[in-house]
């Protein structure tokens, strides 16, 4: 099983995402932003970081990278895609997911362990979780406040497309405490906190994040 991890200029968590793929038992394949060939990968991760320096808006420039043209096209026909943090922002800018991530309510970059609840276990990236499982993974971003209009919010909620919600105090002002969402088909997931930093309790707050990566392997095997 091959999982592509895209490196844009300014990507930071690409090595971490590749490590998580390895921990899950798959082979990470490095994808370069200028290369539109996806090298036959079975799934793609858009990692965290500050692609293109967050110039203009987070993710606004990456959306136009050659690799994204292929990813957008294949995502529409079912390729599992996980966007973490900056990757989530890129997925929103690419219109693969609705809404936008704006500056944290407190105006500070925030980094720390965050408790979230997994509320959708049917997506390609969350199928290995038990419904409503509470997990702790790192949250680290400056622009992580999920915003969308009322009708989009109502649709996300009614279709069960909120895959994870913050627990406790709202860390960044996200609407309905939304930490992650999926598209209607369930193959494209964006999540603000970082599952790839929670695969080994030696370096992260837990190993709770690993199930995101094993989930996609299961969903691919099941196909």
């Amino acid at each position, binding site marked *: 099983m091959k999982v592509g991890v895209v490196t844009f200029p300014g990507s930071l*968590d690409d090595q971490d995402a590749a490590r998580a793929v390895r921990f899950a038992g798959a082979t990470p394949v490095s994808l370069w932003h200028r290369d539109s060939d996806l090298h036959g990968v079975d799934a793609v991760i858009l990692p965290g970081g500050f692609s293109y320096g967050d110039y203009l808006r987070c993710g606004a420039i990456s959306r136009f990278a050659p690799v994204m043209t292929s990813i957008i096209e294949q995502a529409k026909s079912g390729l599992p895609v996980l966007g973490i943090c900056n990757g989530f922002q890129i997925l929103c800018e690419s219109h693969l997911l609705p809404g936008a991530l704006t500056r944290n309510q407190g105006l500070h*970059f*925030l980094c720390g362990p965050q408790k979230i609840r997994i509320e959708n276990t049917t997506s390609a990236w969350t199928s290995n979780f038990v419904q409503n499982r509470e997990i702790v993974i790192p949250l680290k971003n400056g622009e992580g406040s999920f915003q969308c209009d009322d009708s989009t919010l109502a649709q996300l909620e009614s279709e069960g497309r909120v895959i994870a919600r913050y627990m406790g105090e709202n860390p960044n002002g996200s609407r309905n405490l939304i930490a992650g969402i999926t598209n209607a088909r369930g193959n494209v997931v964006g999540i603000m906190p970082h599952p790839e930093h929670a695969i080994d309790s030696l*370096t*992260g707050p837990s190993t709770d994040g690993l199930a995101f990566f094993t989930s996609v392997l299961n969903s691919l095997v099941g196909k």
Partner: protein
Amino acid sequence: MALDTVAIASTTPDQVQPFAELGLKGDEYQRIREILGRRPSSSELAMYSVMWSEHCSYKSSKVHLRQFGEKAPKSDALLVGIGENAGVVDVGQGYAVTFKIESHNHPSFIEPYQGAATGIGGIVRDILTMGARPIAVMDPLRFGPADAPDTRRVLPGVIAGIGGYGNCLGLPNIGGEIIFDQTYAGNPLVNALCVGVMRHEQIKLAKASGPGNLVVLFGAKTGGDGIGGVSVLASETFGASGPAKRPSVQVGDPFTEKVLIECSLEIFAEDLVVGIQDLGGAGLSCATSELASGGSGGMEVELEKVPLRDPSLSPEEILMSESQERMCAIVEPSKIARFLEICEKWDVTVTVIGKVTDGDRLIITWHGEVIVDVPPRTVAHEGPVYNRPMAKPGYLDQLNAKVLDIPMPKNNPEIKAAILKLMSSANMADKSWVTAQYDKYVQGNTIQSQPQDSGMVRIDENTHLGVAISTDANASWSYLNPYEGAKLALAEAARNIATAGAKPLAVTNCLNFGSPEDPAVMWQFAETVRGLADGCLEMGLPVTGGNVSFYNQTGDVAILPTPIIGVLGVIQDVRTHMPMSFDVADLELYLLGETRADLAGSQWAYLHNERGGQAPLAHLKNEMSLIDLLLESQSLCNARHDVSQGGLTATLTEMVLENNIGATVTLEGDLATALLSETPGRVVVAVHKEKAQPLIALASKHKIAITRIGDTGGKSLTINDVALELNELRAAFTGTFPKLFG
């Protein structure tokens, strides 16, 4: 402005030049004339003035810093010593680690965000220049009083700048310190440490050798930022007086730096450079003269080839610009095509600006006219050296003789109030308001970070090899006794490495002081260097490099002498690392080391505006035994935490709050002294009952006092008859920073 060339300089010896405005003394200017046998051209004057500045030339500190070499302990670990961009040590398994601290104090006072951001950028490039991948940063900080209005301007800006730049580079921030003191008002200290790792064979040096090799500039385009004194020169020729033409604080772009890091590492991996230097302070002047000086001496540069952000820059300004995110490499002609290809892959601007020659002069031309023709060593390495007058400060004997007059808590309610007062004071309070703004997870190798005793990162996922770093300084002690203060800071940093289970290996430093022209400050500096050199010799730890920051002074008031000492250690298996706090109940608590009445220079004294008394003496033999004990007892312990500023009060508070598990403690003797004294050489250890006897036996073998002080468990910190609920203690500890800066 007419171009001033070497030819013109040769025929107009009497032209008046603004050397004083550029910071050169009359005799320094005369020496430049003697070296060149004529007056310098304006470009040459600009180069000498920045390279002979205190910041670049270490002219006041050099005579003292020599001790680090003269007294260096024998060490097999040192691969590259003082003088290069950063020292390099061997950590085993073929890995080399490089680390260094630099100051960015003055820019951070003027423009906190950019000053701090470019401080991170600069030190990261120093580490990169050695051939290493940067793997972590730390930042020791000092500010004026926490509640002073200007601190509310400076501190949030500095924190945001460190985070804004470091987070965007993908470097975990694994530690540092924040201390407040009146003397830092107007002189905040922003020191930045970076550590990097490489294989032995990848070490790079700043030298331009091999005639015919190309001088290549890559990275950001050159702009008008960071031009200090040179704007004087530029405006002087216009006959203008008024505000400086160019901003003197550099502006950073971390995205450009991140791309530059990845691009450089790919270039290094293919072995495409002969020598490399980053462009930091003094920009191209520094990079070209140091590269040429480090090689055989000859270099020609065509300055008009430098890509510019601002086409109106004069050649003098281009030479002096401190625009960030630039590197200068020496590349063999056969390898340039591949070099350019990698830069193109990363969209990095790259230009061949000159070549190495077989001569011994650095020649810089501007559209064919020679504007600089100098022996590079005279610019880079043979600047002035001063043996400045020093005198023990007149006030010191009186200060040391002072009998301390601090109100000590006398009964249980007063003890409780004292603990809450101390732990909610800005110096002792929880710093997570700050550290939450830094990414500590990125790269996935962070084993420990703030508030642990030291930062620790893994450098090999398969063998589990790691390094730990701690930076420490106790300026209150250094003020009372700079010689002992330096040794004590060294001991504390080494101890903080060892509590985590790493073996101390090498030392770096950032020496922050007032004006070297003040004999009292110069004495503090000399005593500090003597203390650090003696301490390093005694502890067998080589100094691998460092940085000196003078002129941290407002009027007559200098900052407290603040030697930040960084110690790096190695841990063979990071999985055995020892945290600062216990995560289970029913462990036994022991205090290693003896407690004396050391209240001079303590945080309790500081809270009562008492500066006097005698600093404790450093007992380094004892500290080394303690370190041996810590390393040998690694497998016996559950948690260990250093006792330093804030004494046992701080150590116990931090231990119980970290994992929300309380403790019941019984202390003998005067309770106030036991809780507030800051006697060095102490560590609190938590062990399982069955491991207690082996630990006691080891302590006795190493002749370290060991005292059973209590047990873990419960939801309070109870000391003798004083009980503090964890919630109450937590509220005091964590409330301060959000209240001040939130």
